[in-house]
């Protein structure tokens, strides 16, 4: 019942976002273009890299393109659905506008996560990600195993959920620390570059960091490794689900504790 109610509310929020999208067309076009330029620049950079080294420590060009495309799936999905909403948490707490969310008979985490949908980025996602994924599979020299692809997609979905829960937890820390926004920027903007990096080519400590602490590896690295048959699906899925459970519990505790401390503007 609660899930259906929140789903209906979510559809209403998406409708409101659609109307906002129609009202600011130039900004929308530029916003889509910005992300397309970002993806294109990463692809061009990758091309330059592959020109110098056709095989980068067992990573072929199609593997690197697949890694990039899955990282873009994470990036666009997070940006479309929740990232900009959670990034505004600090501002809402400081200005006291969180009160408006608290007064509504809706789960506050839900509302703060999904209030606005970046409709414009759906176009960028379609234009940037889908051709990249198709290109990555078409240029593969190794045969494509459907079961491994399905397993890779499952791990990707788990990764998206885990990274959402991490971001939700970190945004809840704004109730405790004013400067947490800088930390969030460090983790979700600057460290974002590691999502499209073959982690086994870097020091092992980074692989552990991006598996257990900031689980970017689940968004792209592990799905690609699973599709290539280089890692076992079950242990990775197990770790992902465990991280999701832990972060779900942690985000609940952080938000509960944070809301007790929140003074509001009224």
């Amino acid at each position: 019942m609660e899930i259906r109610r929140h789903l209906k509310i979510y559809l209403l929020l998406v409708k409101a976002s659609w109307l906002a999208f129609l009202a600011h067309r130039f900004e929308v076009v530029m916003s889509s273009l910005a992300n397309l330029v970002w993806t294109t620049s990463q692809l061009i950079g990758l091309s330059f890299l592959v020109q110098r080294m056709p095989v980068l420590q067992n990573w072929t060009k199609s593997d690197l393109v697949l890694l990039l495309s899955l990282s873009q799936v994470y990036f666009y999905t997070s940006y479309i659905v929740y990232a900009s909403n959670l990034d505004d948490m600090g501002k809402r707490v400081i200005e006291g506008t969180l009160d408006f969310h608290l007064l509504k008979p809706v789960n506050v985490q839900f509302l703060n996560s999904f209030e606005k949908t970046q409709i414009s980025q759906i176009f960028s996602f379609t234009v940037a990600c889908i051709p990249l994924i198709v290109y990555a599979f078409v240029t593969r020299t190794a045969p494509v195993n459907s079961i491994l692809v399905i397993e890779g997609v499952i791990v990707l979905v788990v990764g998206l959920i885990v990274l959402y829960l991490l971001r939700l937890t970190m945004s809840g820390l704004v109730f405790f620390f004013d400067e947490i926004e800088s930390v969030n920027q460090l983790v979700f903007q600057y460290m974002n570059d590691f999502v499209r990096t073959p982690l086994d080519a870097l020091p092992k400590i980074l692989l552990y960091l991006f598996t257990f602490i900031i689980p970017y590896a689940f968004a792209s690295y592990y799905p690609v490794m699973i599709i290539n048959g280089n890692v076992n699906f079950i242990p990775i899925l197990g770790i992902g689900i465990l991280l999701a459970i832990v972060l779900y519990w942690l985000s609940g505790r952080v938000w509960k504790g944070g809301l007790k401390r929140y003074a509001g503007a009224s």
Partner: protein
Amino acid sequence: MRKYLYLLKTQLSLVATYRFDFWWRWLNNILQFGVYFALWSLTAINDPVALKRLFLYYALYFGIVNNLQRGQGAQKIADAVGSGNLNSMLLKPVYYPLVEIIGTGSRLLSLTILPVLLFVAGIVFFPSIFAPANVLHFVAFLVLAIMGFIVWNIMITIIGYTSFWVIEIRSFRVVIDLIFEFLKGGYVPAYMFPIALSTALKFTFIPYLVSFPISVYMGEVGTTEIVTGMLTITAWAIVLLFISVRLYRKGLKNYEAYGN
């Protein structure tokens, strides 16, 4: 002139006020350096010379030169225009664009303090890695870095002035930032660009913002080229300044604001 110096002093004192913010930005610089160096170092395995070149390139890029070419100046101009707050600045006996440049520029200058100190320590203790080619190249690097800082700030005022005609420029600014970040040599080291791209960029001011000063520091260009480069960037600064001033005047004619 005194009022601008006072403004500069006030802006620099903000470093002491927002210490955490600055420490984090320096940490972000280190992280960015780490990410791109780690990625591109894969092309220089078993080649210590190439590795050293890459290390110095990104250390200079993220540590000093690119730090001088960041900031939210364009967005601040756009916000002032869009909200009507520009009115209050127009009533004051100051030239608004210069106020914005001082505000943005002072923050950027303070961001370079720690990297410069680290570089000096690096030159003293690890000269084989950090030392410039010679004193002349080092001085030329400093001059070019400052010129790049000036050209960049003039350019962001031009971007900011588009808000006189288009209210919301946030994403437009991001597009410009991304394109420049790529062409300056942030995502891919500029010396790894294909020859066609490097040649095409020579007709713009972009190489003279970051990659040319770094090449000068490393001693990869001769004295004649350094002089030519300085003249080129000076010419670009004059052209962009002319465009900026004209655009500002045109924008003010178009500008309307209501209220107090």
